[in-house]
């Protein structure tokens, strides 16, 4: 599985950057924006994780020959 490590690093990077943006926006007194940015980052990461899990299930299906 070639994407495995890359995906983890990508998610970590998004987490770090979003955390930094959150901190800066909060410092500048834009807490509402900060929360929106965090929420959007979370949704993006959730989407990526959902894709990976879909792949995982597909693989399991293929391994155990559950072809419909």
């Amino acid at each position: 599985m070639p994407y495995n490590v890359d995906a983890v690093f990508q998610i970590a990077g998004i987490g770090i950057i979003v955390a930094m943006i959150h901190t800066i926006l909060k410092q500048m007194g834009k807490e509402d924006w900060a929360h929106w940015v965090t929420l959007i980052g979370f949704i993006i990461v959730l989407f990526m994780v959902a894709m990976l899990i879909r792949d995982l299930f597909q693989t399991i299906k293929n391994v155990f020959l559950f072809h419909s």
Partner: protein
Amino acid sequence: MLKLVGSFITVLTSTWLGFHLAMQVRQRPKQIRQLLTAFSLLRSEIQYGNRPLFEICKLISVREIDKIADIFRFSYEELQKNEGDTTYHCFHKAIRQVWGQTSLKGTEKEIFLDLCSVLGRSDRLDQIQHIDRAKEQLQVVEEKARLEQEQYEKMFRTMGVLGGVLVVILLY
């Protein structure tokens, strides 16, 4: 390799955008102050001098620097043309030409145009009163712009860099 070049360009662009926005925010109070000095000059010229308005405009355009000088130089040229336009029209044309290049916003424009509609139409005392009023309003706007600068200048710069990095990570 191509990916790396692309991501580098993305980061560079968003950084530039952030710095540009920060510069706009930084320039605004400065240019409002320049406008204020120009008004002071106009006021003293009207109060103590006996020159016609287009000469005062020329004088201000020589004394001031960059964009504010441009506004007064254009209005000097418009007033010189003598095409039958009112003073207000001449200033309006000049402002329309230059305003896009400045960092100034609509509030200052309104104050300026408000003053221009009075210039050269009534007696000395009335014009001076109007200039004083415009200056007071501009001072309030300048204070606000300075607060905005303190708040947003650094934010725009950092957000430009971070936003670029985020986009690169998302698309990589």
